[in-house]
Structures are given as structure tokens and as C-alpha cells.
């Protein structure tokens, strides 16, 4: 039995190593054709047109745009819900609402994608005239809703873990409930909440289906949420499902984009890991 467990562990590690290996070796060939400098500074991304450009910035901006929109929804909502659940909600309510929130997180993302495309966008078009059929705004909003449970659930755990003695200390000094929540409990749980936000951010950066379906696939260096954009993930999906020949430079762009995404989320995860470590030290 011990053997089996070990083999499982080894398979997992090997797979990860394999993925990273392929990612880096394929993009190595890519970077022999395109300089890293061009990759990072060229403002156009058009690997399949006749006039080829390989600047990652438009994809990066598309990714950041949808991510930031989603975070603008998910962070305030998620943290507010967490505070409500841990500090205000009656036990019973908390008991029922928590699983329901988690259902939100288990809806397949393609469903969210079509919801954004066929419901949210037409609805928003009533109010925002220049809104494209595919746009960063709807995709970001819906992605934000999808991410709320991730933030609220992890943040609530962090709030709930704040020792009871701190609550008593605050009440004992004449704090109201609101003051206790926002001035004592929230700061005490801040590292846990920040971790939840970073993980959610990484999730949004890596989210694929919603943006592929609803944000479009037009690499576009813009900060305008009404426009069609392409995220790194959406580009990878479109490129892999298209019919580019293997070993062509077009094909290798997938890996270059993949590496960018990998580095990005790796950094985010490392930051959250470091914060988590500091957090544990503090409360031991």
C-alpha cells in the first residue's frame, strides 16, 4: 500500500516536471526566432497574419483587464460576505448559506461563459451603447461572481480563526460590533484574507472558458472594458483548436504564452505561500 501511495506521488511530480519541461523547451525554440525583448515590448500580437508580430502585451493587457474587473467585484463582495457570515449571521443561516455559496463555485465555467455572452452582454448593451458583442466587461463581471465564493470561503475561515479572546478584548473596551469587526477582527485576519485574494487573482488570471466564450479573441492593447480582447488563456485555446502545423513558429507561440502565464501564476502563488507562512508563525 505504501508503494502505491508513493507511486501516485511520483507520477504527480513527474507529470509536473514533464509539463514544465515541455513548456520551457518549446518556448526555447520560440525565443530563438523572436527575441525576448520584442516579445515583451512589441505592442502587437498577430502570429497568424501575414505581417507577424509577437508582442505579448496585448494578451497580458486583456488578461489583466478581465482579471481586474473580476477582482473589483469579487474582493468587496467576498470580504463583505465573509464578515457577515463570521460576525453577524446567526449560526443557522451560516450553516445553510455556506454550502450554497460553494455551489456557485462548482458551476462549470463554460456555463458562466455563455451566461456572460447571452445574458449579461445584451443586458449591459441597453445601458452601454458602444459595448461590443464580445467584451472584457461582461466576462470580467461574471468571472468576479464565480470567484466570490473562493474569497468569501477562505476569508471567512481566516476571520473565524481569530481567537475569541481578541473579540472579548474589543467588546470589553466598549467597541460596538461594527468596530470590533472592522478594527480588530479584520486586521487580525488580514494575512489570511490577502492570501485568499491572491489565490483568487491567480484563479482569475488562469480562468479560460469564460473569457474565451465572452471576451472574444482579438489581441488588443487596450484598457477599455467595452472592447473585445484576448487573454493569454483564450489565445491558447483558440490556437490549439485551430489548424496550425506543429513545429511551426505559430504553434510555438502557444508555449511562449503558456510560459508567461506559468511565471505569472507561479509568482502569485509564491507570494501567497510566503504570507501564509508568516501568518502561521504569528498565531502559534
Amino acid at each position, binding site marked *: 500500500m505504501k508503494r502505491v501511495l508513493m507511486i501516485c506521488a511520483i507520477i504527480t511530480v513527474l507529470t509536473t516536471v514533464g509539463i514544465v519541461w515541455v513548456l520551457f523547451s518549446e518556448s526555447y525554440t520560440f525565443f530563438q526566432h523572436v527575441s525576448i525583448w520584442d516579445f515583451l515590448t512589441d505592442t502587437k500580437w498577430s502570429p497568424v497574419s501575414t505581417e507577424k508580430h509577437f508582442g505579448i502585451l496585448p494578451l497580458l493587457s486583456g488578461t489583466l483587464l478581465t482579471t481586474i474587473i473580476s477582482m473589483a467585484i469579487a474582493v468587496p463582495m467576498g470580504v463583505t460576505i465573509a464578515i457577515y457570515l463570521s460576525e453577524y449571521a446567526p449560526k443557522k443561516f451560516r450553516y445553510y448559506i455556506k454550502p450554497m455559496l460553494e455551489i456557485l463555485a462548482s458551476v462549470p465555467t463554460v456555463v458562466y461563459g455563455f451566461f456572460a455572452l447571452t445574458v449579461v452582454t445584451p443586458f449591459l448593451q441597453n445601458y452601454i451603447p458602444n459595448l461590443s458583442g464580445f467584451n472584457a466587461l461582461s466576462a470580467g463581471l461574471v468571472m468576479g461572481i464565480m470567484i466570490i465564493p473562493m474569497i468569501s470561503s477562505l476569508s471567512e475561515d481566516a476571520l473565524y480563526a481569530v*481567537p475569541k*479572546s*481578541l473579540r*472579548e*478584548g*474589543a*467588546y*470589553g*473596551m*466598549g*467597541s*460596538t460590533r461594527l*468596530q470590533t469587526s472592522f*478594527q*480588530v477582527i479584520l*486586521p*487580525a485576519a488580514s494575512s489570511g484574507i490577502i492570501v485568499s485574494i491572491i489565490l483568487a487573482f491567480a484563479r482569475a488570471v488562469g480562468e479560460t472558458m469564460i473569457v474565451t466564450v465572452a471576451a472574444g479573441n482579438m489581441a488588443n492593447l487596450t484598457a477599455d472594458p467595452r472592447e473585445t480582447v484576448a487573454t493569454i488563456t483564450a489565445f491558447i485555446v483558440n490556437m490549439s483548436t485551430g489548424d496550425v502545423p506543429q513545429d511551426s513558429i505559430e504553434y510555438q507561440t502557444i508555449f511562449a504564452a503558456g510560459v508567461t502565464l506559468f511565471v505569472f501564476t507561479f509568482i502569485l502563488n509564491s507570494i501567497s505561500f510566503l504570507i501564509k507562512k508568516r501568518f502561521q508563525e*504569528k498565531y502559534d
Partner: protein
Amino acid sequence: MEKLSIKEKKLEAINLDVYYGQKQVLKNVNIAIKANTVTAFIGPSGCGKSTFLRTFNRMNDYVEGFRKEGDIIIDGKDIYQKMVRVEELRKKVGMVFQKPNPFPKTIFENVAYGLKIQGIKNKKLIEETVEKSLKQSALWDEVKDDLKKSALSLSGGQQQRLCIARALALEPSILLMDEPASALDPISTSKIEDLIWELKEKYTIVIVTHNMQQAGRISDNTAFFYMGDLVEYDETKTIFTNPKQERTQNYITGRFG
């Protein structure tokens, strides 16, 4: 024990019964505590000392199933009346807990917290109060150069004195302490004891303790509780040398022996 006139009574419990759900934890407790004295609550674990102490600042309000009959009077007013705001009450009746519980903020912010939540913005006033409170709690000399450091970086004994300073910053007239030195080393404990002795000039102090010597050293009066009954309440030296109740005698000698 001398009889107190109405004016001399700072704290009073009249026919107090307390229940948690079905269970009765305090039985018809009557006590009157004089201003500027130190009163010790002693008794075996689970006899209701903490519960009683917490009725004076209504910290039991949050406990599920809590119910009381009888009255708690502070400065002549029934504090359980509807019109009383607990936030106001707790500014007047400060509390120090068994385990030091500084907020995860700086030393300065901890002591300034009480003023901040009252909406006081005057920087000079806040600084003065912080300094004064830390001096009163005999912590100033140790931390005056580190006010911006996290309170969690202090030692346990220092944290507890910080919690005392934090309570004093609100200028309460009563200080409730629930085994404030039980988690501390002997040196920190003796510092806290000295402090209590000094503080009684300005405050009325009620302290729960499991340490008989401590009760003997620092308190003017002592109340002995046993299974929810207030068995005996008298001057500390009487309780320790010449108790009237056999149960008190047994408890005290058992502890010393």
C-alpha cells in the same frame, strides 16, 4: 465587616441568580463592594467566579442561554436596564482577561484604541493618554522607544501590562481582572500585583484568583464561592485567619497544605 452606606457602594449584586440554559451557576448572590478597594474572588474551578465577574460589564450577554434574575447595581444604577448602552458601561468598567489579548497592532495603537473608537482625534490628547496609561501600568520605561513595534513582540508579562494600560486609557472607575497573572512568570506576576496595589488609589478593583497567597497579599476583602454560592465575604485577613464557615476554612487550608 463594616456596613456600607448607599453612597459608599460602588458595585452591588442583589439576589443574583444566573443560569446557562437549564443550569444554575450562581445562586442568590448578594455582595456590596466599596469604592477604591481590591476585592478578591476565590473558590474552586467552576464555582462561578468568572461568570459573576462578567455580570458587572455584561460580557455574558454574548453567551448562548445566559439568563439572570436579580440586579447588578453600579454607582446606584441597575446596569441591566434596557436604556443602558453596554458600550458606555464597558468604558466605565474595564476588564483584563486571563490570557493577555493585545490586538495585532502596534503598542501605541493598542493603548490608543479605546480613544479612537470613541471618535477622539486630538493627537496630542491621544499621545498624552497613551503615555499616562503606560506609566500607570508600569510599562512605559520598557516600551517608550518601541511604541511603533507590534504588541505581539512583547513578552507575556509585558502584554498583560499593556492590556491593563489599554483598559486604563479609557479612565474607567472599575477594573475587573480575571486571573490576570495566571499565565505569567513570578517576576511578571509580582509586577502586576504591585501595580494593582497602586491602582486602587484611583480604581475599584475586583480580581479573580486561584492563588491564595496572591489574594492575601493584594486584596482588602475576599469573597469565597463554592458551587454557585457566595459562602463567605469578609475582610481578607478575617477570611484567611479566622473564617466563620467551615467550607472556607477547608478550602483555604487545603490549598496551603
